[in-house]
């Protein structure tokens, strides 16, 4: 617990009933921004807009050449997607896949998009548009980290970002996905999970369950503890917002923290620091 206190010490402010720990590190992903406590270790992130997988990372010399070399025997063509954009189509199994990269102010913005044969031009146009609409800064748009795609919102957007606790097997995830109908299932059916746990001879205890509003969005927070025979007991904290159908700015949102029950204080400390910090990023 001492470590957790050190990690998450900060200025506590009150906002809309939520105690906020003012976090210096903020991560912008998709249509949201969230504070990240010191000490959480970034694991991975992914973003998709208009069905195009997209990433932005600091430019690494040689990285693109290495990617091309890794696909050398599968490359079928090298299309032109505009000035300063390198691209190639390759075959992976039966998939025809386009990879492209544009360098923007020290940032490598890359996309991956597949297409049925004969539809390559459509995929190239869509992918080029995504790359063209990248701008540094995350004041608005669909955020990738150092910058954002100023398009949409699309009807098919998704993001996922993962951090690990500094010690042990604790993990925090944040993910969003556009929906056609509100999703009232994900992380919402404790009884089903109790059944699954029971089927394995274990027990599930609901530690707490309540409505909780983050960034003006009314979601459901559930904290459970699961004990299975022969396994270290685990805790899981979830906050689920079901989303609004066909509204890219209001996708389904899931916060998830999980790990061994011994890490519950650290997980809860991270949780209480991160959740109140969630805020929407303006679409434009």
């Amino acid at each position, binding site marked *: 617990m001492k470590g957790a206190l050190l990690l998450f010490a900060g200025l506590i402010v009150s906002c809309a009933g939520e105690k906020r720990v003012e976090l210096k590190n903020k991560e912008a992903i998709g249509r949201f921004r969230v504070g990240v406590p010191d000490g959480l270790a970034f*694991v*991975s992130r*992914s973003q*998709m807009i*208009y*069905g*195009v*997988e997209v990433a932005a990372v600091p430019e690494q010399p040689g990285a693109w050449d290495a990617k091309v070399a890794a696909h050398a025997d599968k490359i079928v063509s090298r299309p032109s997607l505009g000035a300063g954009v390198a691209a190639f189509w390759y075959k*992976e*199994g*039966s*998939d025809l*896949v386009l990879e492209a990269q544009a360098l923007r102010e020290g940032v490598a913005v890359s996309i*991956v*998009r*597949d*297409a*049925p044969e004969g*539809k390559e031009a*459509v*995929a190239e*146009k*869509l992918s080029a*548009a995504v790359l063209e609409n990248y701008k540094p800064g995350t004041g608005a748009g669909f955020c990738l980290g150092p910058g954002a795609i100023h*398009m*949409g919102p*699309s*009807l*098919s957007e*998704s993001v*996922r970002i*993962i951090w690990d606790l500094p010690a042990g097997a604790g993990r925090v*995830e944040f*993910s969003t*996905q556009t929906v*056609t*109908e509100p*999703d009232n*299932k*994900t*992380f919402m*059916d404790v009884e*089903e*999970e109790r*059944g*699954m*746990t029971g*089927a*394995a001879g*274990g027990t599930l205890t609901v530690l707490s369950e309540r409505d909780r509003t983050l960034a003006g969005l009314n979601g459901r927070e559930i904290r459970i503890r*699961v004990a*299975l*025979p*022969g*396994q270290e007991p*685990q805790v899981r904290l979830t906050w689920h917002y079901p989303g609004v159908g*066909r509204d890219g700015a209001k996708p389904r949102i*899931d916060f*998830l923290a*999980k790990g061994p029950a011994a890490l519950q204080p650290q997980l809860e400390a991270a949780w209480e620091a991160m959740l109140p910090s969630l805020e929407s990023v303006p679409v434009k």
Partner: protein
Amino acid sequence: MPKKHQVDWNKVDEFLAGLETKETHEIEVRREAIPLVFVPGIMGTHLRRPGTNGEGEADGFPNLRWSTATGWMLSNLIFASSDGAYRRRLIVGKPHQTFNPEFLEVDEDSPPGDGWRGIMEDYHIFLNKLREHDWKELDKYFVFPVYAVGYNWTDDVKAAGTYLAKRIDSIIEEARKITGLCEKVILISHSMGGLVSRTASELCGARENIVGIVHGVQPVNGSPGAYWRMKAGFEGFNSLGLVQRALGNDGPKVTAIMGNIPGGLTLLPNKLYKANDGKAEWVRVTEDGRLLVAEPQTNPYDEIYRRKAVVHPKAGEKPSTNEYWGLVDPVLLNPEKTAPEGGDPFDEMNAELDKSWDVYLKNLAIAEALHDQLSPSTGPLQHPQTLAATGIQHKSADVVEMHVESNWIRSDPYPNQCFRGFFVNAAGKDMQAVLQDPAGDGDGTVPTSSGVGVDAPNRPAPGDIKLRMEHQPAYENKLMQEWAIKAITAMVKHRYWEQRKPAGGAP
């Protein structure tokens, strides 16, 4: 010191030439190894990303992509968001990827050894029984090493059969190195493993290397249960274990996996399938007892599986023409990427690029080709020495029934363990066809009519059998275990007689 000689068990009646009469000779009878090779059902094999040892993770997903270990299930299916998109990423890959047989491989040692590591731990209960069994008189002539052969169940069953055929070769070679004498194995299959075993035997050239095949709860002609689960998830009315429950409790979760892998589609009813009442049509939609839909008439591929299961009617259409009773709702195949209609021009481009339905049709064609080869119109191919056990007295989907009701409010087509197909009738009324719980006889997954698909009269004792048992834990059932051991014994006796016929003499 006596001079030592080895004689194969099946040559003890032959003269031993060249023995000096003044010497003492010790003759050791060399026993024949008959490996007992267990072939698990779908999802009974642990799968990992190639190039890894199954440990660690990449891009936030575990390198071990499928395991039935409780800890893995807890971490990756219960403690993860675990929706259709997540499951698709686990088994098929990123949204731009479609089924690729090289995406996953069996999580086993290299070389695989006895193969036990690669399969579901629950199977070990029965495998240990086999390993510890006292075969009595048969032990004088034979030894029975126990192997398991897991396979990539996402792939074409033909590929799994080819893999099994090769493993049979290598197991025989290995056993021969140890015992000096091994020519054939006995296969023991569970569920989909029966299809894989028959494929190895009848389509992949392994028949001559197999003494016989013991089948347990094989979906010989497929199961409407596979359709039911793709519509509604794994059902909760039987006592399902963690594994089955973790597979998904609604149609979107199950379709995101099963609709994207040819292996899963092979479990659907084939063209020979008949319901327990003997009728060909196993999708039945009724309104007040009146049959509105009865499919298939002859070919479930054309009449059900290739129809897009659009669950909402087109606006203004009266009566509507959406075939909600088709197998797959296209929007469930790649849920993370598929754009609904009516977006901006870039959404429309994304929709134009969507190939998930075409990919599904391609995977379906793979399953159909296997069905057509393994179960031609003349009947299911099978090894000449076959014994089969069928589970009964558990509610199973031998038919899939939907009952039509008025639909007053807009509701979810995919509630947990249910499905609702919406349509507008000729009178312009909004209606819904509601999926009914399975009510036929079987093992909870495979209906009796399909389970007995390879049964035949006048087989040697213990013969084919029907037992009151559930599908997944079939080999944990004591009566099933006893029957399987008797079936193996019968096959070993067959092997004995095959070798000893000229000389005669009972074992």
